[in-house]
């Protein structure tokens, strides 16, 4: 059985799970409604209690929307961050926190870090199978855009070669990320530091000109200005990585004697296996640490997975409470039309018909709330994605996935089964006192 299941494509597995989750409600509906046509009465009752009905539907929609929105958003966040780290196969830095280095190098979050020297950098750059070994230099900004020093090879790799305009040729030229509000030909002076604490006059003599614009990457690098790493060193009054007689050189190789240091080196190798060899080679006590940002993210997801489970549990509990409130509300509402229910019995309606009317009333509210909740969840996830994207520059999309559909199907089935309870309770009410009330 498991072999058959495992042989199914993922899409089919999702469809089968969806159908299994929906099956109880379909079977229940079929059994309860078989042979009856209660809809005119259900519509009449819905209309009579339209205010309460709208309130119940809204409550259910918010509850379901919250669950769907959170599920979709969490997945979107994971995919977005994973995509942002996609270009960063291996990062080598001084020993410390992998998360701190990853946040600085992949997500451009400013942080103080120890530096690797020129000897180490050269060892990395000259290691077998290394295609790109890009030193990074942080610390400056222009407005909201961080100014990052790196190599032309890495800038080109980051944009997959798609650069409007041209690559920098001198240390006074720069490339703008796709979201940077500077046009080709614009000049700017980088400030030292970031945000409100940035010192705009610290690099007063530096005047950089934009020569090209990087294609969108969907990462925080879209809001960055990339400059030759030599530029960052020079504006800070440091050696620029090259001996004085080659002071105009831009890009590697660098002279270890004139290498001011780099907090991180992004490495791309020719082959996947080589990444593992490099990680092993450059994981050294008190010298260097090498890590895959993707693996660090996976560890983070694992930790966040527990939080996700707690959040899911909270969502589930919230929904159970809302469902309980709605079912209780249904029972209270049904007390209001108990005379009509008693009338149906007096006219000879089978108990199962009365049961079908009350259950259908609850089912209509729950289904309407669930469908509206689906829309609400998609909308909420979309809004949240935009907000998070705007704040982190990580492109986050949270389209509807099977997890949300499974969640919705499960919610529908469980609540439709639970709404049997008020229907049973209504049925147990005596007819004559209701007729006389």
């Amino acid at each position: 059985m498991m072999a058959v299941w495992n042989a199914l494509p993922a899409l089919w597995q999702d469809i089968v799970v969806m159908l299994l989750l929906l099956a109880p409600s379909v079977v229940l509906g079929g059994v309860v409604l078989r042979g009856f046509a209660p809809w005119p009465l259900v519509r009449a009752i819905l209309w009579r209690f339209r205010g309460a009905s709208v309130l119940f539907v809204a409550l259910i929609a918010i509850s379901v929307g919250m669950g769907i929105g959170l599920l979709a958003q969490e997945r979107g966040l994971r995919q977005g961050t994973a995509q942002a780290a996609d270009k960063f196969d291996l990062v080598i830095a001084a020993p410390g926190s992998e998360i701190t280095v990853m946040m600085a190098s992949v997500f451009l979050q400013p942080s103080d870090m120890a530096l690797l020297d020129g000897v180490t950098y050269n060892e990395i750059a000259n290691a077998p199978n290394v295609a790109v070994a890009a030193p990074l230099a942080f610390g400056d900004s222009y407005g909201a855009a961080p100014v990052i020093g790196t190599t032309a090879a890495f800038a080109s790799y980051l944009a997959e070669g798609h650069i409007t305009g041209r690559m920098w040729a001198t240390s006074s030229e720069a490339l703008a990320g796709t979201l940077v509000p500077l046009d080709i030909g614009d000049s700017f002076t980088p400030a030292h530091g970031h945000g409100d604490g940035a010192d705009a006059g610290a690099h007063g003599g530096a005047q950089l000109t934009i020569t090209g614009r990087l294609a969108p990457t969907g990462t925080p690098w879209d809001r960055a200005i990339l400059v030759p790493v030599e530029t960052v060193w020079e504006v800070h009054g440091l050696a620029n990585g090259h001996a004085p007689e080659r002071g105009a050189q831009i890009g590697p190789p660098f002279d270890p004697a004139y290498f001011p240091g780099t907090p991180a080196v992004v490495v791309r190798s020719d082959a996947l296996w080589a990444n593992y060899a490099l990680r092993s080679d450059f994981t050294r006590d008190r010298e260097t640490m090498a890590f895959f940002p993707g693996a660090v993210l996976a560890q983070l997801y694992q930790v966040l997975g527990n939080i996700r489970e707690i959040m899911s549990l909270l969502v589930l509990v919230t929904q159970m409470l809302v469902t309980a409130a709605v079912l209780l509300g249904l029972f209270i509402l049904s007390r209001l039309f108990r005379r009509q229910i008693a009338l149906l019995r007096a006219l000879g309606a089978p108990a199962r018909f009365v049961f079908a009317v009350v259950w259908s009333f609850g089912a209509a509210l729950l289904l309407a709330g669930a469908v509206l909740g689906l829309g609400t969840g998609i909308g909420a996830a979309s809004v949240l994605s935009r907000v998070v994207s705007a704040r982190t520059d990580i492109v986050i999309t949270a389209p509807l996935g099977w997890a949300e559909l499974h969640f919705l199907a499960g919610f529908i089935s469980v609540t439709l089964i639970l709404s049997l309870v008020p229907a049973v309770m209504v049925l147990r009410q005596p007819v004559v006192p209701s007729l006389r009330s």
Partner: protein
Amino acid sequence: MGPSLSIAGLEVRDPRGRVLLSVPALDVPSGALVGVEGPSGAGKSTLLFALAGLVAARGHVRWGAQDILALGSERRAAFRRETIGMIFQDFLLFEELSAADNAALSALFHPRKARAGLRARARENLTRLGLSGTGARNVTSFSGGERQRVAIARAMASNAPVLLADEPTASLDRAAADRLIDDLVTFVRRTGTTLIAVSHDPRLIARMDRVLRITDGTVSGDTTPNTAEGAQ
């Protein structure tokens, strides 16, 4: 012809065991119009509900050969569905539905094949009761008399041979009540329906073939009003 009614040893008690109604014996022939009068709380409505099998009771209430009290809850409902129509003082219509939909309410829980016939009969009943052309109107726009006519059309949609009426004119003004009495009596006589009507309305009682008086849960009087109509 509908079933005749035969009651033997009928006794209804409240949950504390107090006797609410006791009818040792009573026979009503098919097609008769029977009025039930008496002071409030005497047990008139209880009698009506016992005849419909809606209360727990001892004894026998036989409609034809069928003792409704011997049936289980669902079989009693099925029996009412086929045999007994009921109308009430405050009509108990679904205000959100049209007159036609109210009149054909029982079509919703009858088998699919019977639904078209029920709807046609409901429309026909509305016409007979002077409500032709009003079927599509929502009953909220109806007067009290019109609403009770819709309730009668609903009660008779399944061609039930018995109509039990609980204070059918109590919510109507005099003129409307008189018109309803005329229409109701004409309707049941034309269709041969047995009518048992609980009422305080002397004009309705006067149109009955026979009048039972209920006092303290017992039948204290069984008379025939002296009317030409009743003698027909």
